[in-house]
């Protein structure tokens, strides 16, 4: 079972590394979207500082959202998903492997580059670590919850925007707490509460979302 997890993870990572441009894509999208704001809104440091946590979080959320379709769509279309469902291993494990791979390929890079963007957007130094931690706790939830949405819309062609309609509402609490944590940290206050909330949500998502995803996949696979 662990082996199945590992093999699937390895396959997805290998596939991603095979088309290297794709690997960098969510990251580049993230950077591009964040940098649209100084251009579109204002280059003034004071304003950017206020906007920064929100803008960075929204951009992270959007770039995870956009990369979600690599989670199951392709597998559905070429029939690999059928094969996964016919695997003797529990589907939940396989789902977890795919979600983990997705996070490694999108969430993690965002977490790693975020401090740099934070600095560019004048996030105070003492809030940078909060930025990292909030993203570290929040992005896996985005992948996990996103997986439910993707598995529900996998059979819908051009489901891209339907997907956002379905999962953006579910993302909003995470967004509010994540951005708020950074905001509060910029004011030099304690953010234990927000981070604990994010951690709790993460724990909940890890235990429930893969199950819901597996159920959803069994439902939509019935074509």
């Amino acid at each position: 079972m662990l082996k199945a997890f590992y093999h699937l993870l390895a396959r997805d990572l290998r596939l991603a590394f095979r088309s290297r441009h794709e690997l960098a894509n969510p990251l580049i999208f993230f950077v591009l979207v964040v940098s649209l704001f100084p251009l579109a809104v204002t280059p003034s440091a004071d304003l950017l500082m206020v906007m920064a946590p929100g803008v960075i979080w929204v951009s992270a959320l959007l770039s995870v959202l956009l990369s979600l379709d690599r989670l199951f769509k392709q597998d559905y279309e070429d029939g690999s998903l059928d094969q996964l469902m016919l695997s003797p291993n529990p589907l939940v494990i396989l789902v977890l492997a795919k979600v983990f791979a997705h996070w490694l390929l999108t969430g993690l890079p965002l977490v790693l580059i975020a401090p740099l963007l934070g600095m560019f957007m004048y996030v105070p130094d003492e809030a940078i670590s909060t930025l990292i931690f909030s993203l570290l706790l929040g992005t896996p939830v985005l992948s996990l919850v996103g997986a439910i949405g993707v598995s529900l819309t996998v059979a819908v062609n051009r489901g891209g925007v339907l997907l956002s309609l379905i999962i953006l509402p579910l993302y909003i609490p995470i967004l509010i707490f994540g951005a708020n944590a950074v905001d509060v940290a910029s004011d030099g206050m304690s953010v234990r509460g927000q981070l604990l909330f994010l951690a709790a949500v993460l724990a909940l998502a890890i235990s429930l979302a893969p199950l819901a995803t597996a159920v959803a996949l069994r439902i939509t696979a019935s074509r």
Partner: protein
Amino acid sequence: MFKRIWGWIQRFSSPKHFYSISGKMIPWFAISAIFLGVYGLYMGLFVAPTDYQQGESYRIIFIHVPAAWMSMFIYVVMAVSAGIGLIWQIKLADMIAAASAPIGAWFTFIALVTGSLWGKPMWGAYWVWDARLTSELILLFLYFGYMALQSSIEDQRTADKASGLLAIVGVVNIPIIHYSVQWWNTLHQGATVSKLDKPSMHVDMLIPLLVMAIAAKLFYAAIVLVRARNQVLYRERNRQWVRELVEKL
């Protein structure tokens, strides 16, 4: 015993049986909804006194609060019946869920619009980005998401199950809406009516409000049955009994 109950549930939830029973129930719901609605409007518009602080504008409450309550109530009904449909494979439950969504979306829409119409005189702006307002907006999008998913999956069974799962996942939003006023310090009214101990409200205002709330529930009951009957007809269109029934219409 359990078997008998189960058998009874199955029999009642058979679309054919539901169709005939609901046909008899709808007029009752409709009539009492009209009666209570008219009575509530009369009480609210003519009898209830003017509010000290808000003047006459508070009369929006008789629309706004019942609509806001219904928006949440219907979502819960929808999610619960979707869950029943998902777990016990009862088709009727799926139909109730599907029939509820548009009604819920309408109520949500009304709550949003009346709320913002009320907000202009009270807060000076149609819209503020406070937690309750935002989460109500999210609720509207959850309804839209449910309906969009339902209509974009061709196979009816798959559509029911998939959108049902979504409805269940979306239930997390309901407590957020309800408690948001307490969690975040917001402009929006805290619990004034639904406080358990002692509602902080004039009785002459409270009564029409409650009457309107009940009328809204009855209205929902009537409409959801009509919609569910449509679903039954459509989904069972190949059964003999539907054909015979339609021939007669």
